[in-house]
């Protein structure tokens, strides 16, 4: 037998905490805990001589007999104002021992009149005192205090409801939503325990506001569940913690008996249950508030019956657009409407649904309402898998379904009012011909987050099915589906790949195909990031995504890639694969991945297939491979040279060709991703049309000698030149250096009279300037040559320094005129 009430209290509290698993401390446990405090406090109060005219009462959660494991014990000492010193002594006697054993006690000392006045000043004090419960002392005085507070509330019920509404809004602002945040606040968040209490307070203040049976049952279940989670959190952390952070979710899920299920791990199951309960609470609170502020006049107006799947959408669009919450009668009417499961997407349903999506934020609200009534899944069966589903990554703040409706809202906002400071957004919106596709793409982009992994591929499949069932126009379906299957392309490429890699940009442009699709992906990237959380669209990410979009856009604008070219590219690579079907698949794949897109666009599949054997095998640092074949006309030859790329290589090849007496009619220079030069020439004999094996041998020998540094090409080209006619002096030498023609290279255009070794002269001048020729376009007209060279400097950038640009002009000119 323990005599000391405090020793007994602490022992019994500890025993209660241990009595069963942490996940099962619901209302019964909270009630039992309250009883334990009651017994101790009554004993302490009565231990000495309690002065007359004083009462001890419980407030707030303790007053409701919902004392959670680590919550404050809220006490009120009511007194009649006559014996202040005695009251102070009593408070010391009752409270000090509680503090001494480490209990968190909140206390207030007031007269009944003070109770009334403080209740009008502070909402939290008023609501705490609405739950006042007598513990010890002068019972009549405690009752008086309670009556004063309740009288103040019932004198102005509308005012009190308004204060509760403002209080709830302030809490929602500060703590966020318990129904959508991945780390929800269980007590103060919107949809949390405080909202459940708020519903009770509204009911107590306003006559005639009653709950439907279903609502009562839902609140009852939500309260029990949320109290259990919150108690478990208190017991796990050992203190009053009300935010359920990711770290604690797995252990609390286990304590509460959740287990891993297919596609839903235990902690996700816990969180889904939290979100579902909290959503019920939020919605019932909104309804109850609407009922409480009903002036009664509307009571007589019945809402007209709602007709089917179309009527439901139209009714929701109407109220949502007016900015009003759906009235309970409207909800009843919607519930009474016959909506087939699944909905048949007639043209009328489709028009109504798309019309709703276009409203933006109201649409998100309307979809939420549909969801609460259990109707959304009839329109979009795929929604079931993402409903209330948590996502466990450091960026996301919301559940999957809320993320999707938030992205939809963001997209609709951009479509109606594009950001004037973002030219890409502006272009994307004004050039967009299919706003419906954008809205659907935003709504469905993460529909593949079903817990089965690989959400992009799964989402593309689900989106295809969903869009097909909606029977949308083919163009809308294709664009929306493309958005879903490629929604990570821009952000992933921008942050993880080298944006100075031209072939990468060409590849992205080929995948995207059109400026309209590029715009759609950009808008989706923005809406997606904004709906994810503050860390997803930082200036850092924005700068990278914009750089990528700018470059891809210029590729489209210059016609270097577009829908037609992208199609040709796909088609050509497909045909090439067919032609190479006898080769090992992985080798062919490696060949396709290594070669730049420009190669496949300019070399038809039959020739590429022929090149395969020369290009595909690995090449050593000093190796050089060359193959000559018949050209497009008799007397012309195609020459393929493959070697490890290095500064000067092109000039050596050009020089060796000149030495062998071969004229270059055209040249194409490609570089593989792993730094192998693939140079393709069309050549003819400078004098005799037939080029025999002896000349090719001479070319190979000279090139090898040049690469090894064993011979001087300058002298040999000069020797050779003496045997050929001099250039036409009437043709002028022109040199133009342009930096706006490409994002990756400086373009040098050279016009000059044709002569043997011209390409050697230009490219060796460029090599002397440490310039790397990435692409060369060589064309010969009668007596005149126009060449374009795409060059980069030694560190891979464009040549932008005016002094260097001038140096290019003088060096090349000196070489050609000298």
């Amino acid at each position, binding site marked *: 037998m323990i005599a000391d009430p405090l020793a007994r209290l602490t022992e019994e509290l500890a025993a209660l905490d241990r009595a069963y698993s942490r996940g099962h401390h619901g209302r019964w446990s909270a009630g039992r805990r309250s009883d334990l405090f009651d017994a101790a406090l009554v004993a302490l109060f009565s231990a000495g001589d309690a002065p007359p005219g004083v009462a001890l009462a419980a407030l707030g959660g303790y007053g409701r007999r919902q004392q959670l494991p680590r919550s404050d014990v809220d006490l009120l000492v009511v007194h009649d104002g006559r014996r202040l010193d005695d009251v102070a002594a009593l408070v010391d006697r009752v409270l000090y021992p509680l503090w001494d054993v480490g209990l968190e006690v909140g206390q207030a000392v007031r007269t009944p009149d003070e109770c009334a006045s403080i209740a009008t000043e502070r909402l939290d004090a008023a609501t705490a005192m609405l739950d006042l419960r007598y513990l010890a002392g002068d019972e009549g005085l405690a009752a008086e205090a309670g009556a004063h507070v309740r009288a103040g509330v019932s004198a102005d019920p509308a005012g009190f409801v308004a204060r509760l509404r403002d209080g709830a809004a302030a809490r929602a602002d500060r703590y966020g939503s318990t129904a959508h945040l991945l780390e929800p606040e269980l007590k103060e968040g919107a949809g949390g325990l405080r909202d459940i209490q708020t519903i009770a307070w509204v009911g107590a203040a306003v006559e005639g506001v009653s709950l439907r049976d279903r609502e009562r049952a839902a609140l009852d279940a939500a309260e029990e569940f949320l109290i259990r989670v919150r108690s478990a959190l208190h017991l796990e952390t050992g203190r009053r913690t009300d935010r359920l952070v990711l770290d604690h979710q797995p252990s609390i899920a286990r304590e509460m008996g959740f287990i891993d299920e297919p596609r839903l791990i235990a902690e996700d199951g816990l969180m889904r249950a939290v979100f579902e309960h909290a959503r019920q609470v939020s919605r019932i609170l909104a309804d109850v508030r609407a009922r409480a502020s009903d002036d009664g006049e509307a009571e007589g107006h019945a809402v007209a019956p709602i007709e089917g799947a179309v009527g439901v959408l139209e009714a929701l669009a109407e109220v949502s657009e007016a900015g009003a919450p759906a009235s309970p009668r409207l909800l009843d009417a919607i519930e009474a409407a016959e909506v087939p499961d699944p909905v048949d997407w007639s043209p009328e349903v489709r028009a109504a649904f798309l019309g709703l999506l276009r409203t933006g934020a109201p649409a998100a609200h309307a979809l939420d309402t549909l969801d609460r009534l259990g109707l959304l899944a009839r329109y979009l069966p795929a929604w079931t898998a993402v409903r209330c589903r948590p996502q466990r990554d450091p960026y996301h703040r919301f559940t999957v379904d809320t993320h999707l409706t938030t992205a939809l809202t963001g997209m609709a906002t951009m479509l109606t009012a594009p950001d004037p400071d973002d*030219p890409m957004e502006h272009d994307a919106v004004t050039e967009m011909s299919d706003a419906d596709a954008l809205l659907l793409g935003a709504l469905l982009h993460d529909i593949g987050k079903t817990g089965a992994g690989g959400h992009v591929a799964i989402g593309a499949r689900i989106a295809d099915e969903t869009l097909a069932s909606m029977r949308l126009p083919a163009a809308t379906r294709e664009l929306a589906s493309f958005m879903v299957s490629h929604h990570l392309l821009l952000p992933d490429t921008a942050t*993880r790949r080298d944006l100075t890699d031209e072939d990468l940009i060409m590849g992205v442009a080929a995948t995207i195909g059109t400026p309209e699709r590029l715009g759609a992906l950009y808008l989706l990237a923005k809406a997606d990031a904004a709906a994810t959380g503050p860390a997803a669209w930082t200036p850092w*990410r924005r*700068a990278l995504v914009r750089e990528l979009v700018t470059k891809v856009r210029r590729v489209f604008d210059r016609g270097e890639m577009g829908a037609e070219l992208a199609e040709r590219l796909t088609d050509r690579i497909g045909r090439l694969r067919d032609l190479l079907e006898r080769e090992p698949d992985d080798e062919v794949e490696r060949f396709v991945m290594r070669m730049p897109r420009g190669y496949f666009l300019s070399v038809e599949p039959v020739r590429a297939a022929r090149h395969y054997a020369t290009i595909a095998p690995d090449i050593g640092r000093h190796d050089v491979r060359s193959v000559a074949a018949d050209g497009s006309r008799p007397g012309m030859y195609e020459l393929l040279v493959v070697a490890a790329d290095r500064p000067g290589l092109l000039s050596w090849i050009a020089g060796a060709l000149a030495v062998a007496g071969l004229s270059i009619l055209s040249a194409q220079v490609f570089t593989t991703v792993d730094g192998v030069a693939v140079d393709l020439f069309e050549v003819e004999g400078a004098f005799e049309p037939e080029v025999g094996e002896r000349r090719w041998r001479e070319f190979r020998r000279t090139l090898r000698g040049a690469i090894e540094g064993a011979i001087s090409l300058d002298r040999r080209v000069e020797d050779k030149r003496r045997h050929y006619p001099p250039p036409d002096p009437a043709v002028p030498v022109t040199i133009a250096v342009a930096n706006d023609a490409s994002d990756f290279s400086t373009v040098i255009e050279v016009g000059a009279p044709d002569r043997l070794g011209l390409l050697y002269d230009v490219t060796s001048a460029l090599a002397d300037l440490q310039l790397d020729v990435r692409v060369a376009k060589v064309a010969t007209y009668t007596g005149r040559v126009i060449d374009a060279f795409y060059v980069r400097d030694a*560190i*891979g*950038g464009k040549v932008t320094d005016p002094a260097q640009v001038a140096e290019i002009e003088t060096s090349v000119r000196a070489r050609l005129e000298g």
Partner: protein
Amino acid sequence: MKLVTAIVKPHRVDEVKEVLRDLGVQGLTTTDVEGFGRQRGHTEVYRGAEYQVDFVPKVKLEVLVADGDVQGVVDAIVKAARTGKIGDGKLWVTEAEQVIRIRTGEMGPDAV
């Protein structure tokens, strides 16, 4: 104890992470940062509209290493982060006076 700090191009981070993992480095902190070095900012032109890019996006890496492992880690980062082009970034090594693993209270090399 040394703190190795490196500023690298975003698209080299995965590569760096991999080589450090191969070296047995246990932990790495990355931060998205923006700044300029010799690369400076630049003016981007998007369809005729100019906009100024004052700072270039980079990633800052921080690794705590025991004195004996510094050179290996430094070499690995430099090799993995290099593209040979402008803006490859910088790396520096500073003395870390104290290192404590918060969970266990382990100190010095044990905490790395």
